[in-house]
């Protein structure tokens, strides 16, 4: 008989584990595509972060929570969740040194102001994606951890 702890995972199911091993890299790659594609089409930082977190959650559902926590540890998650905010704020503060306002990327002396705006938005999307992935994974860890009592 199965114990109560194994109800939530598919650790003994070879079909789910094989397809998960095949699909998780593709999901992460597609999340990067959504992240980069956000300026010129559907997508963006929040969506890419959610897809990245969904890849890790799928891995956790089929290989168990402990293995996922050994790959993406709590320490890395707290680091990532603050790193994204740092990227966002740093990119926003960068135009202040060239005489612009906060988040005014056109003032950054790159090739031309349009390109500078595009790259600035991309950098901010990367920051948003990293933070959203970390916070989503943190919520998932908190919800799926068993209570002590």
């Amino acid at each position, binding site marked *: 008989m*199965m114990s109560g702890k194994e*109800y939530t995972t*598919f650790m003994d*199911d070879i*079909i*789910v584990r094989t*397809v998960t091993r*095949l*699909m998780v890299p593709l999901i992460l790659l597609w999340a990067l595509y959504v992240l980069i594609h956000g300026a010129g089409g559907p997508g963006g930082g929040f969506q890419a972060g959610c897809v990245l977190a969904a890849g890790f959650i799928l891995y956790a559902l089929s290989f168990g929570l402990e293995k996922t926590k050994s790959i993406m540890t709590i320490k890395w998650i707290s680091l990532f969740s603050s790193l994204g905010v740092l990227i966002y704020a740093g990119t926003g503060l960068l135009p202040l040194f060239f005489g612009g306002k906060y988040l005014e990327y056109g003032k950054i002396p790159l090739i031309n102001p349009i390109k500078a705006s595009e790259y600035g938005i991309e950098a901010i999307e990367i920051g948003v994606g990293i933070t959203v992935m970390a916070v989503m994974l943190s919520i998932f860890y908190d919800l799926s951890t068993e209570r002590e009592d």
Partner: protein
Amino acid sequence: MNPVDIIVTLIMSVGALLMLTGSIGLLRLPDVYCRMHATGKCDTLGESLILLGLIIYQVYSGHELVLDKVIVPAKMLFIILFFFLANPVATHAIMKAAFIIKTPMWTKQGWKVWQKEESR
């Protein structure tokens, strides 16, 4: 009428008919196993046929852009590949979860909880 339009209409109609069959099965069948049986198969082939019709329409329609004729059908092909990979496995996972938590099964003699063999 353009023969490509007729082929595209036929393929997408078959896909929509399959989706309709899956929806009727979801509404009419008695328990969770039969409903997953109806939707898991019909969704995979129905959505794939609709996307196949869109691919044929995109390749043979009179667009001037050459890049769109390659990239958009390639993305749709990836979506079809994803459906064929993910949809049966998701059906299998939901079905197995329902089996593990002992969801009752409909039989002609009444509702019944299927027990796993103890010998395994």
